[in-house]
């Protein structure tokens, strides 16, 4: 029997494939049976209603995309009334992604969303910390630790910290999140980028800049996932540019205990189903019986000792 399960803290997922926040919604149930997934991860919500960023909110770059959706949100109450009940029809655990502009608001939202039907909370600490200088919480170890401590005190549910690539301190931030009580790290959110329409001379996004996601982003996020897996004990959930089953395997080998698939679902909506099937065939073809045999199996030998904390490109 093939064992596709993976362990994220106290949660056992029936397979390591799940959607990334903001690239998934109830609508995808029209494409395939959502119970095929290891978990369901919602778009980030805020307590208050928000309308999000001006359009255009996405643009294409060579083989990938930028987005500046912002966090349009129907608010906490609408979410509890409409969204949580929808996912109760499924066995897969529901992971709710939340965000706020200050550590205290973050913690109070975290407390209020800790309700039956929610299996874990993904805290999108890659969003700007408005109280301080507007830099995302997850850009610095100190702000990461501060917000994570408050979040940890606000809930008994598992806490997944979603990191940002917009930092030179990936491993320090990862350790700070672990230290402050995160149960898992999601690595990572999108990378700040920009595109300009040379005909109109206007930025291609209404918001001027946006986050890079998709295949172009993979080598960066994979590097971060590897660095994090080497520097913390808690599980790492890899996220960034995963489009094929080979990408899933690459992240698992690098040390990720599970993966999140984002942009690829836009291009190929049933892709996660194919990845679950592909993972099964891959294990079979390799004579492996469990996904766990794959996780962290990278052959990095001595190289890893000296270099894992390397942050400058060589």
């Amino acid at each position: 029997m093939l064992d596709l399960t993976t362990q994220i803290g106290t949660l056992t997922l029936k397979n390591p494939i799940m959607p990334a926040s903001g690239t998934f919604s109830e609508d995808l149930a029209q494409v395939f049976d959502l119970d095929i997934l290891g978990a369901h991860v919602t778009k980030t919500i805020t307590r208050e209603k928000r309308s999000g960023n001006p359009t255009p909110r996405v643009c294409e770059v060579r083989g990938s995309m930028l987005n500046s959706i912002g966090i349009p949100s129907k608010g906490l109450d609408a979410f509890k009334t409409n969204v949580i009940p929808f996912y109760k029809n499924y066995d897969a655990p529901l992971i709710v992604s939340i965000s706020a502009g200050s550590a205290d608001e973050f913690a109070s939202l975290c407390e209020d969303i800790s309700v039956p039907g929610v299996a874990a909370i993904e805290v999108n600490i890659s969003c700007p910390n408005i109280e301080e200088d507007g830099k995302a919480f997850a850009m610095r170890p100190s702000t990461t630790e501060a917000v994570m401590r408050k979040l940890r005190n606000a809930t008994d549910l598992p806490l997944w910290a979603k990191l940002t690539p917009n930092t030179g301190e990936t491993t320090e931030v990862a350790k700070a999140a672990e230290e402050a009580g995160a149960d898992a790290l999601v690595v990572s959110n999108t990378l700040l980028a920009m595109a300009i329409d040379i005909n109109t001379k206007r930025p291609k996004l209404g918001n001027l800049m946006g986050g890079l996601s998709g295949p172009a982003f993979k080598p960066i996020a994979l590097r971060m996932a590897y660095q994090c897996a080497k520097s913390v004990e808690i599980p790492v959930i890899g996220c960034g540019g995963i489009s094929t089953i080979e990408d899933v395997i690459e992240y698992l080998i690098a040390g990720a205990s599970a993966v999140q698939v984002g942009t690829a679902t836009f291009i190929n909506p049933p892709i996660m189903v194919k990845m679950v099937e592909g993972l099964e065939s891959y294990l079979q073809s390799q004579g492996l019986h469990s996904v766990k045999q794959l996780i962290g199996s990278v052959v990095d030998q001595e190289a890893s000792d000296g270099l894992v904390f390397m942050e400058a490109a060589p």
Partner: protein
Amino acid sequence: MAKPIHEVECTIISNEPVNGEYRLLVLNAPSKILDCEPGQFFHLLCPVSDTLQPYLRRPMSIYGYYPDKGELHFLYKVTGEGTSAIATLKAGDNFNVLGPLGRGFDILPNWQNLLLVARGVGLATLAPLALEARRLNRKLTAICSARSDQFLLSLDYFRELGATVIPLTDEAGTSSVENMHSIIEGLIADEGIDAMYTCGSNRILKLLQTVGKEHNIPGQIALEQQMACGIGMCQCCVRAFNRNGAIVNERVCREGPVFDLQEAIGC
């Protein structure tokens, strides 16, 4: 639950220019994706080559769907990288489509006299409405506006379906808003209009909103917005609408692409 959305590989039957600006793409398609409504669209995966490398899918209205012969038609204009890539497809090639998507046009039981006002490639979106009108035995008048006769698409198609066609062109100087307005007033005075349909153009939207308010005629408009997912997940395709005195954002791919005429806001 809503109908399933399918991602399937179709085969190209043909992909030929219709006139200088538009091309007709005819696909051999499985019947499961041909249970469509006029106004719905598909999200198309463009081919990649040395010179053209579009990444996101491209939304395209259904120009025709024929479950009996297993065909799906699109009428498109080559405007950028994605549509240029689609234009390179040849008979026999595979082509990946996602759909049908979105909410189509309504034809309520008491809407007997229908008016359709279209400009340019907008006809692609409105064409299936003509077919449906005939199926439901409604009377349809189509005002079709374009730069010149050469760009007046589908007129024969509309006529074949029993529609009355009123062609207007910039070239002939007949396409002004004023002229369109008086033609529509004429139609209303003559045999009346129960519902109006349009898409795209701002000028036409404003005109129909005015006429609709004055004569209390309901209407619908198909709108466009850039899309990533096409099925409601990413929230990139929102547009603002006037609803009960407030501004609300709706997803064009999911709550649309067809919206209430009076709620729509031009851009």
